[in-house]
């Protein structure tokens, strides 16, 4: 189950202009932090790994999960979870239905409902299944978004400025929760951030992207 996320000689350019160049293996349970000023292509790297790179970009190299090459797989088949700065809970679904959207298919109705309930109590939101996500607090939404992603049983985790939208105390709390879960589930984590504190909390390798190669 626990595989490394391998970025093998990944090079991304936009209309011929080189943007990102990275070669790194992220071991299970560790975090690679990618830092750099805005516009340097941090989020572009994540969309490449997630499989949603816009056709404006050209990319070469490979993305592998352990021995599996996932470079050409559609996003839905990659099993790579992603968290954004916003919670992006689906506004038309209840909290429980959002979690059920993430929960991998299979199992009886009762069994699935029970898994949702226990997932909710796991993040201290017992009885919230029928709530409108819009009525939750920021921290509650972030926890539901994390749990929705974990229920899909991802094999790697991408964090796109995932903690930037939270205030300082909440930020520490959610960050600890996410890293703790990722470590316990042995997930390799690729985090993009502009916050030094995020990098220190992650405790792993740090890769800094620069705009230097743009002017070259």
């Amino acid at each position, binding site marked *: 189950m626990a595989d490394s996320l391998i970025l093998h000689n990944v090079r991304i350019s936009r209309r011929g202009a080189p943007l990102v160049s990275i070669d790194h293996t992220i071991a299970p349970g560790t975090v690679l932090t990618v830092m750099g000023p805005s516009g340097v292509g941090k989020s572009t790297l994540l969309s490449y790994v*997630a499989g949603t790179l*816009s056709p404006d970009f050209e990319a070469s190299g490979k993305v592998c999960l352990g021995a599996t090459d996932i470079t050409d797989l559609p*996003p839905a088949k990659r099993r790579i979870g992603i968290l954004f700065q*916003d919670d992006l809970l*689906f506004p038309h679904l209840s909290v429980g239905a959002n979690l059920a959207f993430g929960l991998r298919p299979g199992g009886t109705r009762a069994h699935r409902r029970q898994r949702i309930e226990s997932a909710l109590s796991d993040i201290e939101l017992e009885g919230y299944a029928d709530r409108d996500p819009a009525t939750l607090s920021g921290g509650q939404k972030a926890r539901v978004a994390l749990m929705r992603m974990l229920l899909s049983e991802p094999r790697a985790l991408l964090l796109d400025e995932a903690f930037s939208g939270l205030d300082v105390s909440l930020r520490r709390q959610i960050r600890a929760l996410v890293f703790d879960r990722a470590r316990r589930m042995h997930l390799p984590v690729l985090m993009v951030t502009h916050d030094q504190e995020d990098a220190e909390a992650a405790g792993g390798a740090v890769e800094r992207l620069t705009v230097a190669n743009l002017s070259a």
Partner: protein
Amino acid sequence: MGPDNDLMRLLAPLWAGKNGGSGRLSAVGLIPALTLMAMLGPVCAGLLGTLMPSLGYLPAAGLSTLSFDPFIQLFEWPGLPVAMRLSISTGLLATLLSLGVVTLTLAGWYDTGPFRVLERLLSPLLSVPHAAAAFGLAFLVAPSGWLSRIASPLTGWVRPPDVLILQDEWGLTLTAGMVAKEVPFLLLMALAALGQADARRRMRVAQALGYGRITGWLKTVFPPVYAQIRLPVYVVLAYSMSVVDVAMILGPSTPAPLSVQVVRWMSDPDLSQRLTAAAAALLQGGLVLTALTLWRAGEAVVARLGVLWIARGSRGALDPVLRPLGLALGAMSALAVLAGLAGLAVWSFAGYWAFPEALPQSFDLRSWARHLPGILSTGGTTVLIAVLATGLSLILVIGCLESEFRSGQNLTQRGLWLIYLPLLVPQTAFLPGLQTLLLSLGADRAIWAVVLAHLVFVLPYAFLSLGDPWRAWDRRNSTVAAALGASPRGVLWRVRLPMLLRPILTTAAVAFAVSVGQYLPTLLVGGGRVSTLTTEAVALASGGDRRAIGVYGVSQTLAVLGPFILALAVPAVVWRNRRSLHG
């Protein structure tokens, strides 16, 4: 997949981008091609079907020798110079006035209380069918209409004054009718464009530099807004020049504007008259093209003068006059439609109503009872056609937008022109040819042919209505759903469509309204045998039975308002427990 692939390659440049289709064909990938065929096929076929008879070729009437006789006959018609002049003057004047009213209203009142009232009235005003609005205006301004009745205590009129207001020979009432109907359309388009023009900040800068609201607006906001609404302005010009239903109600009749004359020749039992009609239709197309070119040249002149005006640095001495004028004109064009509709409603329930009285002596249901069977049967046909056209347009438009989204290729300027093309080619230029073609195929008078003809006009509006909200949807929702294992189809059905329920229903209501309001496509493609509320209402114009006109006009309006109310109510009920989906 040979031929299909070629077609896709042909169409790929419309949605520009590097990977012109991944080589895999899906249903969604084919929809842009289908949509283009649905929009442009009838236009091209119709133009061809107009061209051939104009050169004397009409096998259906046993005519197959090529000649210029149809044009010679057309030029021998004594009414031609006046008919042409009417078409040009109505079109240019109506466009100029509509654009002027919209610009003055926006410049003087954008972001103010009065403007928000006008904004709220916009969708209902836009949805009122042209024919109903025209009848309403006629009921207001006719010598025996509401305005002269209300004025009678002051003027002492006991009989309707003997002045020719309706159907005046200069087409001024016709122009006013077009302005009242086109102002809401241009206003909506301009509002959508304002978002990208950064109007608030530009105005703050201009006002800080001492410019008045209107002058500041004209110098800083109008240029980018006009660049955005240029195509809609052209649509207004082409449409005002070639409109038939409004012209039959409000325009002069001896001679009538060219487009009305085309329809008269088309309806002549003598099939050879269709040759003259075809020649006149082509002439109409040429007139519109000429007017568009003139307008385009005018744009350059105005731009030149505008630069000089801006360089002079005048801060706007006329603003105190222009600002109230803008509000008055904007309010008047809205009130004309609303009061007109009220007039239709009053007439539909009127008992005895002698001239100078402002209201009937009594109200009753006699007119409604008399026309109920007709309303029900034509109303049924109207709704059937509108539901089919709306359904098809939604499938095609959502398919196109989704295909655009999945391929990551955005609509190019060229693609945008294609969307507007069916609205820029005058209806009178291609619909007669389409009817002639269908006649030779024996497919005229068929409901499905009418539905397809409506689709040509419904699709562009559906595109314009749904495009912006569809593209504004946060793409990361799709990334998250896919990362959770949802297929592209799953993302569409389980996430995107439910989240966009409100704009989709609004688009459906717009599409429905466009279909209900269609006169010429229904009349010509239906071969006069497919009766809708609109064709029946316009047919009543010559009879002058105001109660019957009232009943049909009100029914038309209700048929259009119903879907708009549903589009508001359904999301409110379905998403009553979902706070962030309430707009």
